[in-house]
């Protein structure tokens, strides 16, 4: 993955901080000694992601871990507080606006909620066909034929293109979202929980569609999900995030066969398996801490069974533990020596 050709998309040391500024009342209060502070959420904290052409990278984590923020940052929907994005080895920050606009078409996003992400007042023909016309990929007169082709490709009946989004079922709406993203001929797709809202049988259909499209159009995916089964099914490589940091990364099979980080281990132990066997649930202790006030050092240490004093002091670095595998845990230092 690292040898030869540069990755299709790379973000280096990307951070995102959301700051809640003080309003006038709070500033006034501070004059009288109320002691209000600006609240800072470290949504994403110095994360590196490199995605090779044709690769599917899964991004896993629980709510509030920053996986959606990271997804939006990679695709360019959110500016980076720190760090840089590279497309095939060239920095995206250096591009002039026109080039950046053309470049942006190569990256598209498919959103979680097939209800909220489609404009309820637009017909499907416009939902799918607006962007390619605006960006000059097709002329307005070709729009109908083009949309019909896009709809057929994702398994939708193109005679329904005059309908509105609410006239479709959840699974069909997910397909509309996919067709809209693909209409501008992207090379890279970020799928943010794109199948989470669907029933299992419909989810299977949409996952299969992702697989077919990947083959047919040579697509590269960043697949964000909290569902380990889904991620294990679609991804070549997996990144596990916890409170804004990547704690482990590596090939899917290797991580699922022998997870290294205590958090990954706990996550996999809890992940549902359809095994017809009664099991005793052994939970990880504690809550997911607030990203407003994350624990010191390794963010996982208050819940970790192996926590040592130094875990509280400084965060362990994400280091290579085997070829292509990285983990951020002090336990690896002791076992290696």
């Amino acid at each position, binding site marked *: 993955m690292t040898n030869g050709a540069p990755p299709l998309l790379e973000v280096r040391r990307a951070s995102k901080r959301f700051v809640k500024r003080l309003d006038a009342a709070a500033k006034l209060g501070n004059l009288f000694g109320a002691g209000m502070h600006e609240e800072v959420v470290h949504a994403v904290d110095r994360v590196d992601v490199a995605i090779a052409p044709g690769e599917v990278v899964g991004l896993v984590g629980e709510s509030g871990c920053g996986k959606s923020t990271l997804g939006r940052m990679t695709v360019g929907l959110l500016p980076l507080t720190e760090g840089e994005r590279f497309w095939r080895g060239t920095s995206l920050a250096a591009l002039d606006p026109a080039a950046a606009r053309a470049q942006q078409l190569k990256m598209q996003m498919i959103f979680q909620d097939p209800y909220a992400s489609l404009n309820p007042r637009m017909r499907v023909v416009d939902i799918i066909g607006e962007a390619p016309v605006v960006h000059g990929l097709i002329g307005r007169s070709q729009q109908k034929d083009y949309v019909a082709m896009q709809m057929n490709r994702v398994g939708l009946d193109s005679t329904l293109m005059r309908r509105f989004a609410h006239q479709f079922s959840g699974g069909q709406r997910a397909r509309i979202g996919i067709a809209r993203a693909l209409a501008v001929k992207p090379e890279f797709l970020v799928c943010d929980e794109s199948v989470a809202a669907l029933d299992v*049988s419909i989810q299977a259909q949409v996952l*299969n569609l992702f697989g077919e499209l990947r083959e047919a159009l040579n697509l590269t995916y960043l697949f964000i999900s909290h569902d380990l089964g889904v991620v294990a*099914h679609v991804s070549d490589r997996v990144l596990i995030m916890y409170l804004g940091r990547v704690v482990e990364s590596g090939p899917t099979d290797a991580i699922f066969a022998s997870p290294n980080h205590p958090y990954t281990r706990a996550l996999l132990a809890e992940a549902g398996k359809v095994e*017809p066997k009664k099991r005793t649930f052994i939970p990880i202790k504690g809550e997911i801490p607030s990203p407003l006030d994350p624990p010191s050092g390794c963010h996982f240490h208050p819940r970790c069974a192996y926590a040592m004093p130094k875990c509280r002091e400084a965060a362990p670095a994400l280091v290579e533990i085997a070829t292509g595998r990285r983990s951020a845990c002090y336990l690896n230092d002791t076992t290696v020596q």
Partner: protein
Amino acid sequence: MSSPLLRVEGLRTHFFTKAGAVKAVDDVSFEVGRGEVLGLVGESGSGKSMTGYSIMGLIDPPGRVVEGTITLDGRDLTRLPAEELRKLRGNRIAMIFQDPMMTLNPVLRIDVQMIETILAHERVARSTALERSRAALVKVGIPSPDERLVAYPHQFSGGMRQRVAIAIALLNNPDLIIADEPTTALDVTIQGQILFEMQKLTRETGAAMIWITHDLSVVAGLADRVCVMYAGKIVEEGTTYEVLARPLHPYTQGLLDSVPSRGVRGVPLAQIPGMTPSLLKLPPGCAFRERCARASSECRVDPRMEEPDGAGHGVRCFHPLLVATA
């Protein structure tokens, strides 16, 4: 065999809308024994939640339980006057809902809500009720219960809120707990904690539980027996092991094959074609036949629940997957 705690027989709950009658629950029968965990599995619109609501007597117009009996401990709940039913609800039968933010009153402190639940059913002193509320919070694993009692729901995280909802459900030591997707809104690690608590509590208190979910993996680890619902009907029932390891109904098999996992990475999932039919205009016969590879002309007649190999593993299908080889 002693009589089961709850027996539902031929339950039909229909919603009478302008467009026609929606048969949300259509001829559902099952039993739950004391201390047993029954998993009620199905996709959205399969009628699993409405079955739970029917038992609780929570069906609002235009919906109505049109047929069938729900017998709890020898008493038919469908014939009970509203006042009698109210005495059972929250007392002998308790329900835990999917979204704990919606079930807790946002403007009342936790202690107020808990004490209210006890006093609604029993004449005890407020101090006794408070003490019992505190004990219930401890039981579901809430740290520092004294501080938590005087907090408001918005001060709790999602997992903690669901624990509070569970604690409230347990306050009056119910015989039956109906849990409607209580872990769906929660993260995996928090779901694990809640499942752990529920498992412990049913074991300790001996309460029976109906666990309504779309997640087969949760049922696999938790339930003793499983009913699979499709379009308002139970299409397969049996012990969790039998149903998941040797499914008889093509729909159950389809559901199991649809679950993605590492074992079949990159390989297309075996998908069920088509989509869930609208309950408004269900054609007669097996509701699954349009999506079923094994369907024949026979399937235009509604199949009955049968046990092809005896042993309590029932299926509503003319062409079950495994025929008894005894």
